[in-house]
C-alpha cells in the first residue's frame, strides 16, 4: 500500500489547530491531496504515544443516514461506549459518513477493530482505525462543499451517500431539526 505512510500521518491531525486533511485515505485522488502535509518528527512520537493509549476509534464509510443510535447498538457489543461524535457536514450540519467513537476501555476498542470493523452497518462495510482522541472541530467534513473530501472525488454513484435519496425519517424529522438549537450537538465533557 503506497499510501500507508500518509494515512499514519493523518492520524496526527489533532495536534494542529486547523485539521485540513481527511482522516483516512482510501482512493488515490485523496492521497494526492495529502502530499503537502509536513509534520515534525517530535509530534510524530507524541502522537504515536497517544495512539497507543487511545480508546477512541475513527469509523468511516458510514451511510449518511446511519444514526448515532445504530452505531451505539452495534459497537456496544464490544463494551461500554463513552461517547460518539458524529462527523457533520460543515455547512449543512448533517451527518457526512464518519464518526469518532470512544470506549471506556482500550481493550474494548481493540475488539471493535477486530470484530466489527470490516462488517456491515446499513448494508455498508464500515472501517475503523485507531484515533489519537477527539478534538473539537474535527467533527466537520473538510471538503470544499462541507462534506468529506473523499465524496467530492467519488466517481461512481453511491446511494447511501446521496442526500436526495434521504431516508424518510418520518415527519418528526423537520420538527426535531428545529430543536437542534435548544441542545446543540457540541459534545459536552463527561460529567
Amino acid at each position, binding site marked *: 500500500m503506497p499510501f500507508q505512510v500518509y494515512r499514519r500521518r493523518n492520524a496526527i491531525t489533532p495536534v494542529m489547530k486547523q485539521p485540513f486533511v481527511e482522516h483516512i485515505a482510501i482512493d488515490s485522488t485523496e492521497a494526492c491531496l495529502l502530499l503537502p502535509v509536513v509534520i515534525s518528527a517530535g509530534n510524530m512520537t507524541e502522537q504515536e504515544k497517544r495512539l497507543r493509549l487511545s480508546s477512541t476509534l475513527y469509523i468511516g464509510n458510514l451511510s449518511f443516514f446511519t*444514526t*448515532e*443510535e*445504530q452505531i*451505539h*447498538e*452495534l459497537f456496544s*457489543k*464490544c463494551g*461500554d461506549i463513552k*461517547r*460518539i*461524535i*458524529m462527523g457533520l457536514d460543515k455547512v449543512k450540519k448533517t451527518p457526512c459518513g464518519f464518526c469518532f467513537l470512544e470506549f471506556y476501555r482500550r481493550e474494548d476498542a481493540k*475488539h471493535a477493530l*477486530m*470484530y*466489527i470493523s470490516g*462488517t*456491515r*452497518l*446499513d*448494508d455498508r462495510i464500515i472501517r475503523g482505525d485507531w484515533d489519537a482522541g477527539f478534538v473539537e472541530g474535527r467533527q466537520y467534513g473538510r471538503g470544499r462543499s462541507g462534506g468529506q473530501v473523499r465524496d467530492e472525488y467519488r466517481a461512481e454513484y453511491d446511494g447511501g451517500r446521496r442526500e436526495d435519496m434521504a*431516508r*424518510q*425519517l*418520518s415527519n*418528526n424529522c423537520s420538527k*426535531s*431539526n428545529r*430543536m*437542534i*438549537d*435548544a*441542545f*446543540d*450537538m*457540541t*459534545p*459536552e465533557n*463527561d*460529567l
Partner: protein
Amino acid sequence: MSSRKRYAEEEAERSSKRRKATSDQAEIEARLESLITRVGEKSTSSLESNLEGLAGVLEADLSNYKHKILEILCICAIELPEKVTVYTTLVGLLNTKNYSAGEELVDMLIKQMRDYMKHNEWEKSQRIVRFLSDLINCHVVELSSLLVLYQSFLDASNEEGVPQVRADFFVYAVLSSLPWSGEELSESKGPDLDKLLDRIDKYISLLSNALQHALPPFTPPPHTDECVYPIPRVVFRLFDATDIPEGPALPGSNTINRYLVEDCLSRILQVYLDRKDCAAQLVGFHAKNRFPYHYMIIEVVFSSLFNLPDPANLEVFHASLLLELCKLQPGFLPQVLAQATEMLYERVEHMNLTCMERFIRWFSHHLSNFQFRWSWDEWIDCTEKEPEDAKPVFIHEVLQKCLRLSYHQRLVETLPDKFEPLIPKEPTPVFRYIDEETNQIPALPISRKLIEAFKAKATMEQVEEILNQIPGPKKEDNSGEVEEAANPLKIDVFVQSLLFLGQKSFSHTFSALAKFHPLLKKLGNTEESQIFMLRTIRDLWQNHQQMICVIIDKLIRTTIVSCPAVINWIFSEHMRVHFTEGFVWEILHGVLRKMNMEVTQLQKELEDVKHKKSDEEDGETSGEEYAVSNTASESQVEKLQESYEAAQSEQKNLFLIILQRFIILLTEHIVSCESKGTSFQTPWYNLSIQRLEQIFTLHHKQVSKYTGTLENLLFSSDTDQNLLQVYHRFCSLRA
C-alpha cells in the same frame, strides 16, 4: 601502542564480537522457533519427511541450544494442541538421537504441569497429560510409568473432603487422554480408532528400538480453599447423522471421533482470536475430508457461544467469525448455518434463557449483515400462536434488536405483512404534555413555558422558577417541621419536557441531561423521587427501549439515580408489564456490570498502591523525602481501602436486594396460584424463574462470594422449594 590503548581496542573488539554473538544467537533462536512452530502446516512434501528433516536440524543444534529447543517444544505442546501428534512424533525422533534431551523434556513437562495446577490453569495441565500420553506411542515415555501417573490422578480424585469439581477434573484429564494412550494401554479396539492409529503406527514403528523414560513420580498439589476448578461443562450436540444429506457420515454423538474432532476445532477457536485466521484454520482442518466438517464447525461455534456460564469466547467474536466463514465458503456454510438456525428456532421453547438471549443477539446481528433477508415465510407459524409463547416472544425480541441496528420503515418493508403484530412500534416519544382537543392536562402550560425557556437557552434559575409554579405536596414530620416531599408532577413535567426536546439523538439527550445536571440531582434527592424519574422516562420512551437503556446508563454514571433505585423501579408495579422483556434485564445486568467494574477497578488501584508502597519500603529508607512520600501513600492507601470496602458492600447489597425482590415476587405468585387452585407454572413464571437463575449464571463469580449470607438471609429452609432448587443448582457448580 600503549597497553591501555591496546586493552581498549581489544575490549572494543570483544564487545563487538559479543554483540555479534548475541544477535547471531537471537537470530538462530528465532529461526528455530519458526521452524518448530510451523512444522505440520501446509507443505509440498510429506509431513513424515518434514519431521525427519526437522529432527535432523534440531539434533545438530542440540549441543548449543538445548534449553531453547526444549522450551519451544514445551510451549508447542501447550499452545498448539491441535498438532499434538506432530510434536510428540518430533520428540520421539529427537529422543532416538539424543536420549538425555528426551529425559529433560519429560522432566520439564512434569514440572510445568504441576505449576499450572498450582495456578488454577487446569486446562493447560490437561494438555500436558495428553501430550505425555501420546509420548508412549513414540516410545519416549514408559507405558507403566504413564499408568502410575494416571493412578496418581485417580488417587487425587478419591481424596476425602475435596470438592466434586476437583475429582471431576482429574478423572476427566485421564479420560480425555485415553484416545491417545488407550490402544496401547488396553489393546481393546474401537475399529475406527484402529484405522486412525494404523498409519501413525507404521510410521513410528521405526522408533521402536529407542530407550524409554520413566515419568518422575508425580503427586498432584493438594486442595486448598484458593483452588478454582473448571466448571462442569455440558456436551453440546446440534446435529445427528440424519441431518446431513450427503458426503461423509457424521460420527455418532458419543463416539470418540466426534469428541476428538470437536476438541480439535474448539481449540482452534480458543487459539486463533483473529476472525480471518480462525475461519481459515477451521476451513483448512486437516481431517476435513473424513467428516462433514461444515456441520461440525457450525456445531462447535454454537457450542462455544452457548457455553454456560460464559461463552467460551467473547460473544461478538462468534458473530464475526460466522460472517467470515460465510464469506470464505459461500457455497456451503450459509446453508448449514441456516439449517442450524432453523433447528434452534424449532427448539426455542426448551432453550435456556441465557442461551436464547445470545441466540437473539447473534441472529439479529447476522441478519443486519445480510439485509435482513431470511426465509421469513417459513416462520409464519409464530404469528398464529399466543403472544406469550416462546416462538413469537423470540421473534419479537429479534426484531427489537434488528430495529436498533436498522430503522422501523426497513423492517416493515422487509418482513411479510403477517409479522406486523410482532414488529416493534415506531420508536418515537410519547409526550404527555401535548395539545389535545380536551386540553385537560394540568401542567400543560408549565410544560409549554419550559420548552420556550429551553429554546431560549434560559438559565438554570429561570427554569427552576417556572418549575416552582407547581405547588409541591408538603408533609409534616414528627417534630412538626415542614419539608418538601418528592414531587412527582414537578419531576414529570421537567423530565418529559427536557427529554422530549432532546429527542433527536443520544447526543442531544446527553447534552440536555448535562446542562441540567444540578437541577436533576436536586429533583431526585430521594430514592422515591428517583423512581418517579425513571417512570417518567419509561413513559416518554416506552417505544424506544434502547433510549431507555442508554438514558439510565447515563443517569447512573452521573449519579442522578442510584443503583438500588433502578433495581427497585424494575421490580415495581409500574414495570410489571415489561418484567419479562429483554431490555429490562439488559438494564439490570448493566447496573451489576458497572458496579462490578467499579469494584474491580478500586481493587486494582489498591493493589497497585500497596505494591508501590512495599517497593518503597524495600528500597533505601533515608532522607526526609522518603518520609513525606510514605505518609502520602499511607493516607492514599487508607482512602482507597475505604472506597474499596464501601463499593464492595454496595455491590453485595445490590445482589441481596435483587434476590430478595425475586423471592418475594415469585413466592407471591406461587401462593396466589395455589390458593386459586391453578398451576403456578405459567409462561410468566417460567420466564421469571429463569431470570432469577440468570442472576447466578451471569454473575457467578460475585455471587459465589456471598453464599454464607445468602443461606442465612434468603435461601433458608423456609424458602419455597422451587426457588431453593435454583440456588442449590448454582452452588453445585463449585461444590
